[in-house]
């Protein structure tokens, strides 16, 4: 192992190569030794790097030689990270609400002072905790945090009203990456889309049936928005359209913000349902492969199997 300090350009080259070839460290090590020796032999860094060819070309050759699968980014880890960021945001929003906006209730007596403000931030810090830990234990730490928040809610039913959305997001951030890494059967994926679709279409069906039995008075404009909107989105979800899930996540977030700003007696309903749609939308959007991504994976699979055949024929 050579640990001599190398010029910045060399380190950048090795970083780029390492990022392209996470599974072939020995090649990166060999190239590092090559650069060190060549520089010691009097070559300039520009000459050395030009002689090596681009990191992408070296990585491409390594993939061919070693029949490595095409380098695909870890979508499961990305999904987990984004869901965790959303969890932290929900936790922070909850803290702001409980501390500053909530009218004086049992959980917020006027004499509580700054101590309470810090206390309400604890779930947000807990939600963010896995980010501070090594990637290897992040999954388990996330599950532990989700379990801790769930236990807290069961111990103190009073806070459940506020912290259930956080609990939902924490479990989504824990379960989604785990489920994405497993081999998902077509039926399971179809079932997930259909369940999500049912949840999304539900308000539309509810409004339509209420209108049908004339239980509520609703303007025609409102009916036009509330009936076809959820039904169309639900249908798009059933077909696994990623963009529809993004719209639902955004809608859920807006409903949650409305719950906080509007002083509605239906606060809990808006707060929980907003969170439910935020969760369904975010999970659906992150766990559904983009069409391009799927095609890319198939192509990579095809090219690696073609290369495998050509290796055998050598």
């Amino acid at each position: 192992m050579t640990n001599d300090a190398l010029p910045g350009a060399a380190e950048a080259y090795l970083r780029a190569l390492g990022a392209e070839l996470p599974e072939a460290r020995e090649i990166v090590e060999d190239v590092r030794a090559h650069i060190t020796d060549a520089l010691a032999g009097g070559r300039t860094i520009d000459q050395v790097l030009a002689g090596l060819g681009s990191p992408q070309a070296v990585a491409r050759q390594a993939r061919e030689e070693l029949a490595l699968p095409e380098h695909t980014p870890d979508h499961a880890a990305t999904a987990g990270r984004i869901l965790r960021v959303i969890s932290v945001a929900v936790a922070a929003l909850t803290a702001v609400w409980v501390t500053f906006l909530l009218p004086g209730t049992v959980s917020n007596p006027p004499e509580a002072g700054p101590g309470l403000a810090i206390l309400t931030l604890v779930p947000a810090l807990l939600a963010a905790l896995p980010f501070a830990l090594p990637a290897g234990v992040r999954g388990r730490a996330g599950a532990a945090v989700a379990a801790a928040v769930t236990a807290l809610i069961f111990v103190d039913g009073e806070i459940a009203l506020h912290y259930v959305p956080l609990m939902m997001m924490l479990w989504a951030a824990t379960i989604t990456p785990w489920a994405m890494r497993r081999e998902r059967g077509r039926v399971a994926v179809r079932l997930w889309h259909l369940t999500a679709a049912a949840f999304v279409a539900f308000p539309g069906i509810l409004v339509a049936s209420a209108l049908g039995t004339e239980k509520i008075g609703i303007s025609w404009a409102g009916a036009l928005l509330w009936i076809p909107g959820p039904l169309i989105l639900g249908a798009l979800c059933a077909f696994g359209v990623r963009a529809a899930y993004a719209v639902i996540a955004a809608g859920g977030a807006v409903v949650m913000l409305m719950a906080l700003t509007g002083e509605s007696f239906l606060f809990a309903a808006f707060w929980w349902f907003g969170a439910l749609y935020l969760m369904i939308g975010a999970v659906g959007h992150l766990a559904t492969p983009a069409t391009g991504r799927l095609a890319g994976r198939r192509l990579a699979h095809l090219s690696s199997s073609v290369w495998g055949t050509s290796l055998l024929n050598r």
Partner: protein
Amino acid sequence: MDNTRERITTNIRKGVLEYCVLALLSQRDMYGLELADRLVERGLTASEGSLYPLLARMRQAGTVETRWSTPEQGHARRYYAITDQGRAQLRVFTAVWRDIQPHVDELTAEEA
């Protein structure tokens, strides 16, 4: 025309590079840059970077092995050495090459 030349050169190099590495290592153990320099000066590889993926595959295939050597001055180096399996492959390649080469020479003699 230049494109054709490049394509033909690349293809032939691809076929023989592995055995040229084995031939060089059959003389003595070498570290990466040494091997790269010998190959480049003979025009057997255009990009030094392509040597290392090849060496990684050869190591997997068991035709070469590596060892670390620390000289009294300077830093530790990974040396590549040919294995018995590598020598056997080199012998087969040499025999095949000797068979093919005269025929190719004869057929292309008029064009030279």
